[in-house]
């Protein structure tokens, strides 16, 4: 395993690929391997991309990777697709769109399947990001379909979360729904050449305005949003003319000083033609600068570590308890007890857990 780590740090692509495989499979020794990655990681910028199926995530990621490569940066991509709840099998199709980076090994693209287990994907993803980071990638893009808690957990590991919306993805009531829209640092309205794109931009903007009001009620933030309205009308007109699509720029609120509230900018893009990609990457850079200048970057990193520790502990205890259940004759035996009316799930849980709790208590007292 340590040989694998050395080869990875040496820039061996196959070692990197194998490391990610070990992480995904939780192969024996993968923990030491990931531990070894930590001291070499921490330099990459991590970008999360999410949005409903067909919104154009993979196409956009392809163009992002191309643009970063043109700027001389190296790129790692992790694309997560769902797996079948029945067979565990999966078709990982995101790679099909990666046409712009043919034969360029400095774009390392890896497909991962969301292998069932609770929280398991987000740990594996975070660890795979570590591997790409330690390998020396400048930018790491994590792409996933935005449906469900798992997905949100995954993108939360990113420095900048980008949510892709396509025109005609529902009326303003959809926009009010909690969840995916709240985690965005940057919005992209993709397929901005389609009918209804203006309206989608408008609805997003209204939603952001409402959110501003509902929150701290900061007047200055609200003013800033009005400023965007004016700019948006301009850019909408430009879009209608079929001219280059502009970004409805949002100032990160420099005038507010260090504790500025980030207002997610809305970028219009046509990913298939690469339009709006530069503006999108600029918006990501703006957000990154904002994180640095406000000290949020450090806070985010702390939060991320805390979450990693929690998830890892949850998984490990679950594994430990599964082992215990097996030792007691398996889950079916316990279920039999419930079916027969002898006990109930709460009783069983107490039964299994009590010795563990007692043991921990004893340990604490001994210290």
């Amino acid at each position, binding site marked *: 395993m340590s040989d694998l780590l050395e080869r990875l740090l040496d820039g061996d692509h196959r070692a990197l690929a194998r490391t990610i495989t070990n992480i995904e499979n939780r192969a024996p020794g993968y923990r030491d391997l990931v531990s070894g990655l930590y001291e070499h990681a921490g330099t990459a910028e991590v970008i999360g991309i999410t949005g409903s199926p067909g919104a154009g995530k993979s196409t956009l990621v392809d163009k992002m990777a191309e643009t970063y490569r043109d700027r001389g940066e190296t790129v790692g991509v992790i694309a997560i697709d769902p797996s079948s709840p029945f067979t565990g*099998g999966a078709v990982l199709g995101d790679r099909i769109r990666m046409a712009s980076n043919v034969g360029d090994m400095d774009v390392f693209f890896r497909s991962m399947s969301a292998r069932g287990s609770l929280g398991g994907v987000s740990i594996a993803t975070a660890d795979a990001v570590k591997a790409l980071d330690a390998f020396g990638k400048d930018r790491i893009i994590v792409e996933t379909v935005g449906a469900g808690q798992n997905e949100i957990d995954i993108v939360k590991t990113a420095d900048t979360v980008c949510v892709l919306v396509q025109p005609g993805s529902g009326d303003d009531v959809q926009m009010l729904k909690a969840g995916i829209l709240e985690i965005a640092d940057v919005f992209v309205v993709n397929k901005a050449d389609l009918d209804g794109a203006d309206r989608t931009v408008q609805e997003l903007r209204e939603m952001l305005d409402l959110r501003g009001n509902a929150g701290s009620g900061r007047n200055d933030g609200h003013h800033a949003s009005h400023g965007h309205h004016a700019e948006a009308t301009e850019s909408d007109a430009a879009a209608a003319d079929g001219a280059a699509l502009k970004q409805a720029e949002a100032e990160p609120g420099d005038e507010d000083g260090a504790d500025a509230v980030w207002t997610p900018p809305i970028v219009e893009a046509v990913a298939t033609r690469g339009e709006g990609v530069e503006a999108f990457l600029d918006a990501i850079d703006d957000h990154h600068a904002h994180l640095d200048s406000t000290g949020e970057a450090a806070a985010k990193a702390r939060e991320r570590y805390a979450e990693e520790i929690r998830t890892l502990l949850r998984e490990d205890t679950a594994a430990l308890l599964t082992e215990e259940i097996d030792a007691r004759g398996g889950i079916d035996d316990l279920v039999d007890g419930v079916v027969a009316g002898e006990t109930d799930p709460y009783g069983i849980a107490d039964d299994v857990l009590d010795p563990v709790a007692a043991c921990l208590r004893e340990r604490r007292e001994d210290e």
Partner: protein
Amino acid sequence: MSAGQTQQPIRCLVAKVGLDGHDRGAHVIARAFRDAGFEVVYSGLHRSPDEVVQAAVQEDVDVLGISILSGAHNTLVPKILDGLDEYDALDDTLVLVGGIVPDKDKDDLEEQGVSAIFGPGASMEDTIEFVRENAPER
């Protein structure tokens, strides 16, 4: 580790290479592999040998299935095999070819590192069984 985590699905890359636009077979096999519980990466159409190698290495697949119906297998397949070898990946990748390969070419391809060739009429069950039995131990 809990039971759910120790399972290691077989990872496959289903690749279309060269100027061959017939991907029905590739789709069918991708789907059958998925239903067999494999993780299938599909390359998409018109890939160059380099791209297929890049994908196979980065995805660290156990199995590479090359679908080729254009008759260019004698040119394209060896290029892929050489590329895999360059990355030290040939030994632990099970390489399969699916499509129309005349008998006289089969031996050559197998000598160069292709494990099996599935022609028209090959049964899906046999293919899946072959993969299950021969996928490299990691």
